[in-house]
């Protein structure tokens, strides 16, 4: 029964994707007919210059907004969850700030897009890559924040305390102790944000400008003329890229040593010992 249930759910989730991949090699324009294997949709795809401009824009946008979100989200989580942070001190404002920081995940994207556009035109900011990056950073921050927060909560405070005992200032303790410990979470937050930003069509379509077509907008705008198997080919490539990213993210965020109770600590000592020897 359990196996059947799992099989059913996985089928529902992945068969549509599998069909898209299969049809990307279909010689017929019509997806309900199989007409032999072909790579011509991939060939057409690679001929389309505007497709690659859009892909490039989407990549730049994803990288910039996920990195900006990484900085803001990490700062936020560290600020709220370290020893002197508002949440650790059980200050009521701490929870409020956390709620406000995570809210963009829950706001419907269409509203986020509309208000962003209204805001940017109020500021007189020309629409383009800068507005795209700002709007995307807004909805990417919560992802980084939540992942990093999870890591910080499980982190042993005594590491940073030890560093400070040994004379390290706040900055030094952060860069030498906290950051390396939370780095896997930051990286997986970045990858998650990148995927979110790369996918987004609704927010983007509001705040994009005349020189920044993104890939999702381009694909979405094919509804007028009918989606060609060229898009199936592109979806296949994107799906492959997404899988690689997700695997990478999962690999980086896998649980590792939990702190002083773990048996790994002798290893740490050995490292320190080695460093001493080198010195």
């Amino acid at each position: 029964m359990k196996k059947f249930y799992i099989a059913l759910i996985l089928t529902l989730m992945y068969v549509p994707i599998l069909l898209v991949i299969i049809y990307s090699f279909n010689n017929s324009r019509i997806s309900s007919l199989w007409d032999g294997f072909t790579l011509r949709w991939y060939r057409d795809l690679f001929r389309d210059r505007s497709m690659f401009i859009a892909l490039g824009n989407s990549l730049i946008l994803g990288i910039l907004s996920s990195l900006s979100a990484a900085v803001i989200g990490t700062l936020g989580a560290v600020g709220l969850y370290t020893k002197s942070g508002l949440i650790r001190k059980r200050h009521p404002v701490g929870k409020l700030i956390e709620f406000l920081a995570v809210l963009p995940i829950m706001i419907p994207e269409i509203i986020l897009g509309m208000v962003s556009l209204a805001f940017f035109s109020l500021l007189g900011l020309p629409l383009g890559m800068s507005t795209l990056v700002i709007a995307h950073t807004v909805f990417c921050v919560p992802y980084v924040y939540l992942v990093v927060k999870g890591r910080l909560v499980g982190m042993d405070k005594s590491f940073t305390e030890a560093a400070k005992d040994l004379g390290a200032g706040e900055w030094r303790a952060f860069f030498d102790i906290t950051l390396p410990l939370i780095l896997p979470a930051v990286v997986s937050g970045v990858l998650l944000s990148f995927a979110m930003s790369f996918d987004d069509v609704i927010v983007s379509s509001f705040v994009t400008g005349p020189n920044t077509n993104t890939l999702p907008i381009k694909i979405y705008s094919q509804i007028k003329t009918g989606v060609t198997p060229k898009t199936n080919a592109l979806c296949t490539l994107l799906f492959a890229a997404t899988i690689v990213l997700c695997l990478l993210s999962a690999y980086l965020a896998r649980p590792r040593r939990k702190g002083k109770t773990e048996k790994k600590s002798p290893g740490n000592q050995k490292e320190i010992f080695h460093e001493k020897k080198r010195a």
Partner: protein
Amino acid sequence: MKKKGLNLFRRVLLLALAIPFALLTGCKDDGNSLTLFTWDEMFPQEILEGFEKETGIRINYVNFDADEVMLTKLENSNGADYDLVIADDYIIDTVISKGLAQKLNKQKLPNYGNINPVYLKPFYDPTDEYTVPYGAGVQTIVYDPAKVNIKISGYGDLFDPSLANRVAIIANYRVINGMALKILGQSYNTEDLSAIRSAGNKLLSLAPNIRLIKDDHLEDELISGEVSAAVMYTSEVTAAMTTSIEKNLGFEMVFPKEGIGFGPMAGFIPSKAPNPDAAHAFLNYILDPERGALCFEHLGYYSTYAASDPYIDPELKPLLTLPAGFIENMENIKPIGEEADQEHLRIWTAFKAAAGKSDN
């Protein structure tokens, strides 16, 4: 080890801060480009490449997914940023009334005369000052004679009891309600509420025949045999008929005898377009008879340039050009008043409930 982590972090921080500024100040127009704002796949690749090679103007092809998004963008930039927009008829009406389009310079469009007169003086541009039509959706019926016992020649035949649960339609209420209006001898665009109401009653008797109401890939359902007859968007009709020709499926396409609704797309130049000359050059380029034919073959919508008709592939010609003598039977589906539109929505909802299907 630790030092490296620090440097990496700083580098990332710097990068994140520096690149947006670099992009903000970079990416400037070099003065000889055409920002073309329309859906994706509106032109064959060879037309875009040919235009760039011939004129040296670089095409910056950007997309919108919905007409309303395009309008928002133009309102936001106050008619600047984009050189040429191709969109649907009803939204151009709004664009022009808001003063966001500029008048065409016909002297820069020597090929203007190639336009099919059916598509001239449309409701959105009654004096032909702002727009050049580019492709039109024309309402037809496609059916598979092997699976249908009657000969379908108009909307009325779709109501035949022998078609029970065998008909698919698109989820466009003006088109579907319009079928009933046409059967009753009314205009697609009537604002007479009682006429719309009686069309609603008429439409209810179509409900038992409806198997599917959906917008995308309706042609697949016809080809797979899920349904026997369909009222579809023009791009879907073209896809269904081309496949039928390739695979000898024997589908028939019918111009409904009650009257044909159509909706053109058209190009216009926004009021403050940075490079209107390039926009004129591109419009004139596609207005060329042979190039126009290539465009419509790719687009799968009806040719709006009479001079292009003879160049369209003979196999596709019946799908992309109007038969002679149909002109007086055609009617552009226009935006209507608020009250009439509400009535349309009401009868559409009642019809959908009766059909017992949801449009996805």
